């Protein structure tokens, strides 16, 4: 039931912007709870890598005096990876296109993360 609701949140998120190519909700231990990933993506790797990056981001923000972590953004040649906490025990990760409108995506991800946090 909760898995279905998480999937619904992800599908709505992916549908909110053509720039979002994939999304997943992951436990802070790196296990995927729900995902809407294109074919060819390894769910386990996306999950574990996202949680690891967020953990490292958390630590970096703290060590370098940037306070509580809000999100981790990675920009690559082929697009973006955005990770944000969805509550204290889960992570929301999205993959976005290279020309994505980041302002809108930040907003959509924040809303979705709040929905996930309330659900979990």
């Amino acid at each position, binding site marked *: 039931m909760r898995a279905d609701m998480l999937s619904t949140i992800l599908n709505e998120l992916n549908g909110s912007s053509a720039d979002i190519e994939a999304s997943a909700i992951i436990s802070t231990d*790196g296990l995927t709870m729900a995902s809407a990933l294109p074919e060819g993506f390894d769910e*386990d790797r996306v*999950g574990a890598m996202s949680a*690891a990056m967020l953990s*490292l981001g958390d630590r970096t923000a*703290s060590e370098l005096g940037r306070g509580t972590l809000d999100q981790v953004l990675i920009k690559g040649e082929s697009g973006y990876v955005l990770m944000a906490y969805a509550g204290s025990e889960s992570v929301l990760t999205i993959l976005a296109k290279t020309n994505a409108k980041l302002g809108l995506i930040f907003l959509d991800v924040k809303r979705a993360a709040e929905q996930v946090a309330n659900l979990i």
Partner: protein
Amino acid sequence: MSETQDFEALTRYAKAFTGLTPEREACLLEVSEQLQPLLATVTDKFYEQLGHIPETAPFLEGRVDTLKKSHLAWIQSLFTGPFDISCTELMYKVGDIHVKVHLPVEFMAGAMSMINNELILLVIEQFADDQEKMALVLTSINSITSFSLFVMQQSYQESTVAEELDKFLRISGMSRVLFTNLANAYSD
């Protein structure tokens, strides 16, 4: 000490590499009575030689008498056995301790070389009249000291990796479970 280590397998592995055969084990036990009274000299000479190496000083300062006691007990055990899993567990623990006190890895091989040199001289002196016996005693001693070094190095390597992983997890803030899940995701 590692909770996951298969000490039976490690014992077999180390014996296979170092040639610690039942015949050589029997030889060590047989010459024990003759060599035991002379082993304290080996320990004394060992620490005397260590005293000439500046790099070892920080590890010896104020501890030589205690270290000598442990060393002598170990060197005596080379001739009393048992040459079984308990011997492997002990040497594994020694390797682990060496990592915890940050002893440089080369100290183990270097120290074993010094000990072997002293034991060789001792055996030549004791068995000069019996070349065949001397050869067997020398190869047996080489086997048991190599066995000890083999196990210690195995332990040292594993303890070093474990310590480095702990440090990485502490720095990165990653939990051990997350690290395991990450490793599993990339296991193939």
